[in-house]
C-alpha cells in the first residue's frame, strides 16, 4: 500500500516521514517520527491524552489524518522544555502535584500552554473550560487548575 510523504514542522524543527494510508497523526508522531509525548487513551476523541497543536490551535491527534499536516506546524509537549530549562507550566505541575500517573499530563500541558499563549491571565472558569477536553483519572483536576492559575498569576506579577 502506497505511503504518503509528509513534510511538516514539529516543535520548530522540519521533519519528513511516511504516513500509512488512513494513519492518524497520533500514531504517525509516535511510530513514524518518534515523539512519544502525545499519548493514546481512547482513539475516539474523548480523553484528550493525544492533544497537540496544529498551527497553534489544539487538536486531538488521534482524529487527525496524518497527511493533512503537510506543510503545517505541529506542537507537542516535547517542545515545551528548552533543553534543561522547563516551561513554567511543567515546573508548577510538579510543585502542585498536578501529575500523578502522568498519562494525561502531556495533553494537559499542551491545552494549558495554548490557553496561556492566547490568554495570559485566564480566570478559573477559563482554565476549566480550556482543559475540559482533557480527562484525568487521578488528580481530581483541582491541582491541575491551581497549577495553571499559578503560572498565570506569576506572569501577572512579573
Amino acid at each position, binding site marked *: 500500500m502506497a505511503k504518503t510523504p509528509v513534510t511538516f514542522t514539529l516543535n520548530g524543527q522540519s521533519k519528513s516521514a511516511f504516513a500509512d494510508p488512513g494513519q492518524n497523526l497520533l500514531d504517525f508522531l509516535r511510530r513514524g517520527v518518534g515523539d512519544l509525548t502525545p499519548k493514546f487513551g481512547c482513539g475516539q*476523541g474523548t480523553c484528550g491524552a493525544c492533544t497537540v497543536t496544529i498551527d497553534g490551535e489544539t487538536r*486531538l491527534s488521534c482524529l487527525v489524518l496524518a497527511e493533512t499536516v503537510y506543510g503545517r506546524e505541529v506542537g507537542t509537549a516535547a517542545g515545551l522544555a528548552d533543553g534543561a530549562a522547563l516551561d513554567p507550566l511543567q515546573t508548577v505541575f510538579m510543585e502542585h502535584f498536578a501529575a500523578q500517573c502522568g498519562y494525561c499530563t502531556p495533553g494537559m500541558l499542551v491545552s494549558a500552554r495554548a490557553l496561556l499563549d492566547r490568554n495570559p491571565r485566564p480566570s478559573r472558569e477559563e482554565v476549566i473550560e480550556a482543559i475540559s*477536553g482533557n480527562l484525568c483519572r487521578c488528580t481530581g483536576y483541582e491541582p491541575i487548575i491551581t497549577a495553571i492559575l499559578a503560572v498565570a498569576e506569576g506572569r501577572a506579577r512579573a
Partner: protein
Amino acid sequence: MTVVETYPTLDQAARAMGGDAAFLGGGTLVMRAVNEGVAPARLIRVTGPGLSELRVSGDSVRIGAGVTMADVLASRDLEFLHPVARVIGGPQVRNMATVAGNLFAAHPFGDFAAALLALDARVIGAGQGGARPVADVLRDRARAGLVAAIEVPRPRDPKAFGFLKVSRVKPRGVSILSIAAYLPREGGRIRGARVAFGAMGPVPLRSSGAERALEGQSLGAAAIDSAASAATEGLDPPTDEIASAWYRKEVAGVHLKRLLTDMERR
C-alpha cells in the same frame, strides 16, 4: 485498509464519491471510524481553500463547509450562533468539528444541525447553484451529496432565537437533548414559530406540537405551558447510554419550558 484520495476542488471530490467512500470534513467522526476499522474503503478529501469561507450578504450568512465551531465562535456576524457552537464538544473538538459535518453526525450528535433547522437554513450542494432546505438534507442524509456551504438567515431580532443543550456532564457532555427555537414576533405575536429538537429522533426534528401551540400567540405563561405539553407530539426519541426514550419524552417539555421562559424574559 483505508485509501485516501485528495482533490483540489469540492466538485472533483463530488465526482469521486460513491458507496464505498466517505468525505473527510473535520474528521472528528470519520477518523473515529477509521481508528475502529469500520470506515468506508475510501476517504475523500479536498485541499483547496475556499471551503472555510464565511460571507455575509444582506440578511444571511454563507457558511462554507469547512467552517469549524471555533470559526463560528470567532465571527461577530454569527454571534447568534455562539451559544450553539460553544457547547459542542471540548475545545479541541471545536477546533476541528465542521458545521457541514454536524448535519451528518449520528444521534446523539447534531446540536448545530438542530439550530440550523430552527433557523430555516438552506444547504448548497457541490456544483449546485440552488439551495435546499436543511430539512431535505436531514431527511435523507445518505443521498444528500456533498455540501459546499450553508446559508443561514440572520434573525432580525437576535432575541427571537434561543438554544439550550441538556447534558449530564458539564462542560462537554453529549446531549440528552438540545432545543433550538426561533420565534419572530410581529406586533407582539409570534409569526412563523420554528422549534427543533436534537437527539429526540434519528436526526434533528421539528416539534410541530410546540410550533402549533406558539403560532399567533404572545410569548407568555399560557403559550409556554401549552407548547411544553405538546412538545413531544409525534416524536419517538431513541434509547441510548445517555437516556432512555421514556426519560427524553418526560423531560423534553420541561426543558422547552425553561428555554421559552428564559426567552420571554430577555
